[in-house]
């Protein structure tokens, strides 16, 4: 099934607020094998000048995927997720994500185009606090491999 080009330019509603917990950050850090204490020890994080434990940079994908996941799972888009691999990922951070942040993700599908037999989808996701502070912008390119 072809990917529906009519989704280009569509901005999806912001996700439900996601509360960043110390436990989730520690779980994520453990999963990537990162033993840095600023991801699990509040005192160590504060000694380094952070208000609380911070998240590893790529933790932003957890929240941005909560937004883009809903968009990509939209049956109208027609994406075959088993054929999808990650093409490119870029983050711009205003500040580190900190335990206690309550963030929403709002995704815009910026482009869908054919590259050879593949289809490339690009999206831009803004992670903001519920008070409207932009914390991170995530630009993703996903590739649906041609059969």
């Amino acid at each position, binding site marked *: 099934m072809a990917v529906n080009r009519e989704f280009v330019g569509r901005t999806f509603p912001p996700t439900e607020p996601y509360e960043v917990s110390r436990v989730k950050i520690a779980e994520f850090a453990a999963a990537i*094998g990162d033993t840095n204490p600023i991801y699990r020890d509040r005192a160590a994080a504060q000694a380094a000048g952070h208000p609380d434990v911070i998240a590893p940079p790529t933790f932003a994908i957890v929240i941005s995927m909560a937004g883009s996941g809903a968009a990509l799972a939209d049956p109208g888009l027609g994406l075959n997720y088993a054929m999808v691999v990650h093409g490119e990922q870029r983050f711009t951070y205003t500040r580190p994500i900190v335990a206690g942040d309550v963030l929403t993700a709002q995704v815009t599908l910026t482009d869908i185009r054919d590259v050879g037999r593949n289809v490339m989808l690009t999206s831009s996701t803004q992670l903001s606090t519920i008070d409207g502070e932009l914390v991170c912008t995530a630009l993703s390119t996903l590739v649906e491999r041609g059969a």
Partner: protein
Amino acid sequence: MSDQVTYEGVEVGTELPVVSYPVTRLSLVKYCGASGDFNVIHWNDRVARAVGLPDVIAHGMFTMAQAGRFVTDWAGPKAAVTEFGVRFSSMVVVPDDDKGASIEVSGQVEEKLDDNQVAVALTAKSADTKVLTRARAVVRLP
């Protein structure tokens, strides 16, 4: 983890020595759970092969996370990553054995920017193949 790097102390061109990070099927299962990305190609070789992959492959974001860890370990706890981007140029194939695969990350200080920021160019390889290209992080240092 290294000591704190300072903006003053950083020199353009400095090579950051290679670090090897292991990745096993267990790593991927843990990453599935922690990230919420349960795409079957990251844990089920039957489906991975059925869709034309050589075997189960690591999440691109797992590889990116190793590159991120390389940068933050170098930069020290007071550094803040302000930009981080990669292109996934090849797959990290993770066999179902006790050894798994490895991702070798190295870097070079590329540029000193304004506002105490430093750009680091990154290289990541697995099985002698570049798995990341255009990989670059910008960190703000004390």
